[in-house]
């Protein structure tokens, strides 16, 4: 391989702080690390969350300070953040080769201010940061990190008991990008999602990716003018545009075609992924576009993405007694629409909870087409198993109810597919020793 592209090898110098700031941050990191160690010893997980909380308590500006001077790529959207971040980090690492230690990422999916601060504090010298970023943190990320690249995947209904309006999130991105102006990040964005397109419209430069989006239920109206969007097929591909104003699906540089990605210029590559589903081909296309923008050659990026198998436990296979289970995460209707076709076992185990991290309202159960499971048996588990059971009765799907997660896994041999909302998914990872 020849010399690395100059843009990739460009070094940065993390955080040039004043001496008191540096001392304060240093002390906060030490205390945070001690708290994380205590949490690990007590068997309460990785400690990333408690480290971040201590850090932001003792050094409230830690998020902004730790981001300073790093070359940041941020990834956001309702679904696919964690997997895309893993794919992109792997692609950039492959591009860096021996210098892969320059990269820091929040691989555990802790994507709020303190989760990001926690990850950064662990690798103070790493000058390239690939950061999964919660939708609500994107505007702060743009304001404080001056990111080079921002990957915007999609918007769909998710935890409406907390977010209320999807459009408000898109508006916050749009305003932040407008404020950043020409010095703002280059955007890699999903051209199929009207709200993403509207949010990214104010950015200085956008690399559009035409994904294999299947969930359009949250893109009925034009985010700019409120007119009902028109959807039509052109060359066998669905496109959208607004009859009421000029907003329309942009021509994309990158395009997903089945299990292949069409590059700008027309060359096709097949990302040999170890994460399943067409949704992840779309995620890989976005990661690839961002990696290439960052200076990673296509071949290197693909080789890197090939190494990603179970990002933060997603799609991992684990043993629970004699049961071998494949673990799938689905947090909202769009996520379920992608995950359900991947779960092919009979029985299939579905785990539902409704604490804050899952969304307290399980009305979304009626937005998911569980009808496709007819002919198989579903084991309903988790605290809201009974809500799922009633939904399945109306869907005409055979089911049994076992609220206890461990009992639901049983001694089944395997392999059995488990789809879980956020909280039971984390419990499964813990039970399997994967976190």
């Amino acid at each position, binding site marked *: 391989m020849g010399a690395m592209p100059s843009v990739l090898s460009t070094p940065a110098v993390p955080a040039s702080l004043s001496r008191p700031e540096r001392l304060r941050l240093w002390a906060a990191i030490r205390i945070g690390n001690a708290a994380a160690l205590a949490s690990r010893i007590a068997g309460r997980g990785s400690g990333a969350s408690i480290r971040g909380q201590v850090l932001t308590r003792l050094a409230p500006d830690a998020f902004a300070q730790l981001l300073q001077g790093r070359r940041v790529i941020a990834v956001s959207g309702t679904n696919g953040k964690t997997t895309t971040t893993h794919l992109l980090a792997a692609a950039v690492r492959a591009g860096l080769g021996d210098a892969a230690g320059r990269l820091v990422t929040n691989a555990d999916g802790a994507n709020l201010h303190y989760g990001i601060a926690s990850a950064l504090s662990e690798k103070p010298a790493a000058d390239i940061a690939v950061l999964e970023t919660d939708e609500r943190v994107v505007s702060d990320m743009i304001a404080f990190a001056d990111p080079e690249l921002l990957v915007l995947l999609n918007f769909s*209904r998710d935890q*409406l*008991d907390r977010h*209320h*309006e*999807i*459009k408000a999130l898109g508006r916050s991105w749009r305003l932040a990008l407008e404020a950043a102006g020409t010095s703002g990040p280059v955007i890699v964005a999903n051209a199929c999602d009207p709200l993403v397109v509207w949010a990214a419209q104010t950015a200085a430069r956008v690399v559009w990716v035409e994904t294999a989006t299947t969930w359009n*239920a*949250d893109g*009925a*109206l034009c985010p700019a003018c*409120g*007119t*009902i969007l028109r959807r039509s097929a052109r060359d066998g591909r669905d496109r959208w545009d607004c009859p009421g104003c000029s907003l329309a699906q942009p021509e994309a540089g990158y395009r997903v075609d089945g299990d292949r990605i069409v590059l700008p210029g027309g060359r096709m590559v097949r990302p040999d992924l170890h994460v399943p589903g067409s949704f992840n081909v779309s995620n890989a296309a976005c990661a690839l576009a961002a990696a290439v923008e960052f200076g990673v050659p296509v071949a290197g990026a693909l080789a890197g993405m090939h190494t990603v198998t179970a990002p933060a436990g997603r799609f991992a296979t684990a043993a629970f007694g004699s049961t071998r289970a494949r673990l799938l995460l689905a947090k909202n*209707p769009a996520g379920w629409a992608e995950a359900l076709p991947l779960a092919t076992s009979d029985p299939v185990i579905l785990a539902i909870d409704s604490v804050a991290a899952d969304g*307290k*309202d*399980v*009305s*979304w*159960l*009626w*937005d998911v087409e569980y009808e496709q499971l007819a002919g198989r048996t579903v084991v309903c588990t988790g605290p809201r198993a*009974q*809500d799922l*059971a*009633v*939904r399945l*009765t*109306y869907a005409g799907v055979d089911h049994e109810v076992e609220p206890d997660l461990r009992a639901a896994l049983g001694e089944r041999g395997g392999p059995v597919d488990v789809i879980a909302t956020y909280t039971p998914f984390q419990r499964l990872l813990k039970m399997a020793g994967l976190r």
Partner: protein
Amino acid sequence: MSEPVDIVLVYQSLLGIYGDRGNAMVLRSRLAWRGIEARLIEVEPGTPVPAGGAVYLLGGGEDAAQVSAVRALTADGNLYRALDAGAVLFAVCAGYQIAGKTFTVGERDEVIEGLGLLDVNTRRGTERAVGEVLSSWTKPDGTQSLITGFENHGGFTYLGPDARPLARVEIGIGNAGDGTDGAVQGNVLGIYPHGPILARNPELADHLLERALGHPLDPLPSEELDELRRQRIAAVRKAGLRR
């Protein structure tokens, strides 16, 4: 053989953000399980609303979607014709708001004219109402039935003299924190708990069907549904007003 009963799900792409399709699925299935042929008809803006439906359903949605829905339904006119012919309208959440005389949208609280089917007006509330809600509904036979659901709305709704409350709130905000939830006026019923409220409240579902058909329906006992109701009622009472 009689004509199939049509359940019309109106503008799901605009008013369907909280799984509101569930109400239509529940109504259709509860007829089918009794051997009554029923169809679920979905209509989107741009296509005429069928005028011969038995029950029409409006669900939850965001501000811009409410405005678009009112515009399209008013221009279409068939919902009004169907209600004149004796059909039942069941509207939840944002759908309940647009069924009224006026509601507001946007940060500047722009007042929008609704469908005018219920004598209610909606204005920005003093707090956002989010959480499990429990209320009591007086059935036509005079007995009480608990309604369990989930509400999520920023508007408060005030009833005029022609509408009466659908339910009395035990836990939650309901119309305006005034101890009532929903409204009834003729064959139009509205209430805040969104989405699959009829899944959790089969007596309310059957009431809508009986009203639309004009005759009582056979009971349809379900231990599974009873257990779900027990769980949700216990959970909301345990959490109480601290939700």
